[in-house]
């Protein structure tokens, strides 16, 4: 059955789509019978197989896509397998998951059905393994849609997981993966009546297609993460953490810092700390040159040419002379928006830099950055002032406000905090998402509630005829309703 799991690009869309969905429906059907122990054995086997192939898959991803570096991709694969597994392994996902006798509510977890998983080029193996683990843990079959530039490595990751799952008697076709698909084929799959959910992580057009398909979708909005080093912050620590994050996998994480904001008294020291760590502060002319290679002004989006490249590689493209050990390109800017392309999201070791006059000015700059393409995603703050942390958080529109940690790794969860480790970060309604959560198993379940009779005593003892008396307003009714209670 394994060979038939790949959908060829040469076959016609209607036939393939139906075959894929029929297989997925059969897998969902068989999955519905599995108990928790069997499900957990499958998940354990898949985790181990993915983890054991973390290096092979990381190298494969970088070789195929040219994006990022394999050592960091190994860590991504570790998060997607070891940390995700550790986070979900004890979660009840089958049958009765809770019972409250007092309230008379019993919750039963049911699978959703086939899931269509859109995979981004930036995390082509880790996202595959992550989505497979949470899908299988919830007894949902999954269909992997690789990015067109990462087909081989995403398929390899899926194949490894599938073989491991089958060895534990998982339903056949519980994992399927696509080859290069046309737009029509992708849309036909997304709109298929047998599809239960789309897990869309990737470019805006595919995420939008998922939302407009009519199938329920959990998508990810774009990020444009501001990081603010506030006066009470430990500056060398903050700079170190930002570098850890911004250079991780050459800046490919959508939660990585895009623009740094500091108050004027701190600016010089912050820059010195960056320079100590081989960051290069660009001149105005160099910023202009970098804009041309890093941002497609017509499409109003970062160019693929710079995504996941190193700072020296990008500098070379822009004709900027930097030493080979350069870690980061810092672009001092005086504005935010389309007239300042580097204030947009660019998944590369490029960091916009803003100097604010005071705390309020800094927060306002962060709001502008947050609302310039990154609504609902993530914002970052370095501070030791609890009041300012809360003030900052309360005015941002972000699912994650990460404090005193690298934003990339912080938002993904499980390394620097207790957020659920995830490669699909909900961005709330601002990002056109239904949740701000880090997506995990609980989002892939239908929860049934057995509701036992527990009569509302106040309503039972209340004279319902009183509702018919127009002279009684809400306050009067409430008073009587709650009497002696």
């Amino acid at each position, binding site marked *: *059955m394994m060979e038939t799991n790949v959908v060829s690009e040469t076959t016609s869309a209607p036939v393939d789509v139906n075959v894929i969905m*029929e297989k997925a*429906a*059969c*897998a*969902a*059907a*068989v999955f*519905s*019978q599995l108990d928790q122990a069997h499900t957990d054995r499958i998940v354990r086997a898949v985790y181990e197989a993915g983890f054991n192939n973390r290096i092979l898959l990381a190298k494969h991803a970088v070789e195929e896509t040219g994006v990022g570096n394999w050592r960091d991709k190994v860590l991504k694969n570790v998060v997607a397998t070891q940390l995700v597994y550790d986070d979900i392994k004890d979660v009840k996902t089958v049958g009765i998951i809770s019972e409250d006798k007092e309230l008379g509510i019993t919750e039963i977890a049911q699978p959703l*059905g086939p899931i269509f998983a859109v995979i981004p080029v930036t995390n082509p193996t880790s996202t595959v393994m992550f989505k497979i683990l949470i899908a299988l843990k919830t007894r949902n079959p999954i269909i992997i849609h690789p990015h067109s530039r990462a087909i081989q490595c995403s398929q390899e990751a899926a194949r490894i997981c599938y073989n491991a799952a089958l060895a534990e*008697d998982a*339903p*056949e*076709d519980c994992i399927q993966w696509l080859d290069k698909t046309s737009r029509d084929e992708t849309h036909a799959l997304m709109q298929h009546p*047998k599809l239960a959910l789309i897990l869309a992580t990737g470019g805006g057009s595919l995420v939008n297609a998922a939302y407009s398909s009519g199938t329920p979708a959990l998508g990810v909005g774009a990020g444009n993460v501001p990081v603010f080093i506030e006066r009470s912050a430990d500056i060398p620590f903050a700079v170190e953490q930002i570098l850890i994050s911004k250079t991780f996998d050459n800046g490919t994480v959508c939660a990585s810092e895009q623009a740094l904001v500091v108050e004027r008294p701190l600016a010089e020291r912050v820059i010195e700390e960056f320079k100590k760590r081989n960051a290069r502060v660009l001149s105005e002319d160099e910023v202009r040159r970098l804009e041309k290679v890093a941002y497609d002004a017509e499409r109003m989006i970062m160019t693929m040419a710079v995504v996941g490249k190193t700072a020296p590689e990008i500098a070379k493209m822009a004709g900027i002379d930097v030493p080979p050990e350069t870690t980061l390109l810092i672009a001092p800017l005086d504005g935010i928006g389309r007239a300042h392309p580097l204030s947009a999201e660019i998944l590369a070791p490029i960091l916009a830099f803003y100097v604010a006059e005071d705390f309020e000015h800094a927060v306002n700059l962060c709001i502008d950055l947050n609302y310039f393409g990154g609504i609902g995603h993530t914002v970052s703050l370095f501070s030791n002032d609890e009041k300012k942390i809360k003030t900052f958080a309360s005015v941002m529109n972000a699912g994650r406000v990460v404090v005193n940690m690298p934003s990339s790794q912080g938002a993904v969860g499980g390394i620097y905090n207790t957020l659920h480790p995830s490669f699909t970060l909900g961005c709330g309604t601002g990002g056109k998402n239904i949740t701000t959560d880090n997506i995990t198993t609980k989002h892939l379940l239908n929860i049934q509630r057995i509701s036992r009779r527990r009569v509302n005593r106040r309503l039972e003892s209340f004279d319902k005829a009183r509702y018919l008396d127009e002279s009684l307003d809400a306050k009067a009714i409430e008073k009587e309703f709650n009497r002696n209670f």
Partner: protein
Amino acid sequence: MISYIAGTENLICRFEDRMDTVQCLASEKEIFGKIQSVGTPIVFDLEKVAYIASSFLRICIRACKEVGAERFSLIHVCPEIKKVFKIASLDRQINIQ
């Protein structure tokens, strides 16, 4: 375990316990040998079946195709197994009594 009751009107194949991948692979040849040796309608009796794997669904689909939908049926299907056929939308192709 599978037992067969061949009558003049039909061949009843009685399955037991878990029809998992291993059991299905071990039995598939025998089942179709029996089916092909009789010309009567085929009935799969699932009264004692607690679990079916993907392979068993495939056996049902193949049997249905070989003898024709109108000459193939499942009987004594418990709710858990009925749900499997429902989710897979196979209840539209296969006669479940």
